[in-house]
């Protein structure tokens, strides 16, 4: 009887493991198989026409890149700064516990709430309107917890002796951080930044209410923009063009796979060093 339970348990476990991998393969496979045929040069280098029924997705590619490239440095600087403070300048205290709780809570806030928040604060109250700026700021706030978490872990794993040697050579605290700790924690911090980048590219709910859904190229920071994820959502839901929907999704997935693969490689290099 026990052996039967054992067999059953082991089979279930193996099925789960393989099942999860197959799930990923199925999802990615389906999107790529149907989407890659649509990825012609024309598709990738021209603007949409007839509300997306024809034409390409270049403004969306541009919009996605611009949004991510604005949002990520912002949350990167803020997040790494916070991580440095938590790892180097304080001991565990009430304040640090509250900061950590806030960070973890922020990590759990759903993207629709960020969308609502960004709408109220940036689009309406501060008057930025639906724009790159509103979208980037919202995304920056959303990805902040990810960066704080990975950056703090990387910084903490830099061996203490490096700091001691630096102090003994006459360096101050910030000089030590800048010249020894941060370079050493580099790969780990970059991993967090790449993960944040991946999330910014994939995000829809937070973006659609803050960056808008205009089909035109953004010319200034205050222009609205439509990202690939939003475009895909609109095409699919309104049934405008299945072919182009798949194409957009394929492009999106390829981009995300690249970004996350780089993040994974960096993470492995970081783990190997430690």
């Amino acid at each position: 009887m026990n052996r039967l339970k054992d067999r059953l348990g082991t089979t279930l476990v193996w099925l789960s493991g393989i099942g999860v991998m197959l799930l990923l393969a199925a999802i990615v496979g389906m999107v790529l198989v149907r989407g890659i045929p649509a990825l012609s040069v024309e598709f990738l280098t021209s603007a949409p026409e007839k509300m997306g029924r024809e034409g390409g997705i270049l403004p969306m590619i541009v919009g996605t890149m611009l949004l991510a490239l604005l949002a990520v440095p912002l949350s990167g600087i803020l997040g790494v700064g916070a991580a440095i403070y938590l790892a180097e300048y304080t001991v565990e205290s009430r304040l640090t516990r509250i900061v950590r709780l806030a960070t973890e809570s922020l990590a759990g806030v759903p993207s629709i709430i960020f969308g609502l928040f960004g709408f109220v604060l940036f689009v309406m109250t501060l008057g930025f309107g639906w724009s790159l700026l509103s979208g980037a700021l919202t995304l920056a706030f959303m990805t902040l917890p990810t960066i704080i978490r990975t950056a703090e872990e990387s910084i903490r794993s830099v061996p203490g002796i490096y700091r001691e040697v630096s102090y003994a050579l006459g360096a101050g605290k910030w000089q030590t951080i800048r010249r020894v700790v941060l370079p050493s924690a580099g790969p780990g911090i970059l991993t967090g930044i790449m993960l944040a980048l991946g999330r910014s590219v994939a995000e829809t709910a937070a973006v659609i209410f803050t960056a808008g859904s205009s089909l035109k190229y953004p010319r200034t920071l205050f222009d609205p923009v439509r990202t690939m994820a939003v475009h895909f959502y609109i095409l699919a839901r309104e049934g405008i063009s299945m072919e182009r929907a798949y194409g957009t999704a394929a492009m999106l997935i390829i981009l995300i796979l690249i970004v996350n693969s780089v993040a994974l490689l960096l993470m492995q290099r970081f783990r190997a060093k430690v």
Partner: protein
Amino acid sequence: MHERRIERLLTCAALSSIAILALIILFIFKEGIGAVRHTGVLNFLVGSRWSPSREVFGIFPMIVGSLWVTVGALLLGAPLGILCAVFLSEFAPPKIANLARVSVQMLAAIPSVVYGFIGLVVVVPLIREYLGGPGFSVMASSIVLATMILPTVISISLDAIEALPSSYKEGAIALGATKWQAVAMVILPSARSGILAAVILGMGRALGETMAVIMVAGNALSVPTGALAPVRTLTSGIALEMGYATGLHRQALFGMGIVLLLLILGLNLIASSVGRGVRR
């Protein structure tokens, strides 16, 4: 001196988390409280009619919808996720384990709209074909959400299991237990608070998901009558009408946001107190 200024800047950066969270809570409440007060808190939460044109805002069907869909997602996704975590830590040979870990991380990166879309073109027709109903249903939503919370459940459960001292497992095996017995009788019970935290966080994720649910849930305005009935969740409710809502209607949507935010923040607090001491 120079060092002091830097320290002050860094302190501001660290406090930004608190500041942003506070701002979010502040603004969502500020925008939503008008409609909630207009309807009355109790009526808002328990009223089952949602009719913006008549300024009637009862969100009960959507609360129930969110809960049903989430429970379904947990029933499907939690066991699968926990078993997969066990697979990764105990059963998988190193090369397969690596591949599986990467797969989990990639699953987490796929945009929610893609999940929703695949639900739309695969799951919904299947349900309509073989199980009946319109296809757009609680079941479709739960299936899609279950897939989406897998990475969360898997990685946090995995953390919990890997944080256990190896002596636990070795002790069991030394007493003649098989791998599965060691897992079922020693590892899972010992890691249960971490696994519980994983499930709670997965619950939060399912509750908060919007784009995927919109595409497969069906958008019905009444309390769902069964697993095959169409449903509207808090999240899809907000997202669907936000595009054109004004005035009190918009405020009511923010009111739904308040409920959602409170639910999820509450779940997060429970999860961190349950899972305390799990993180390495």
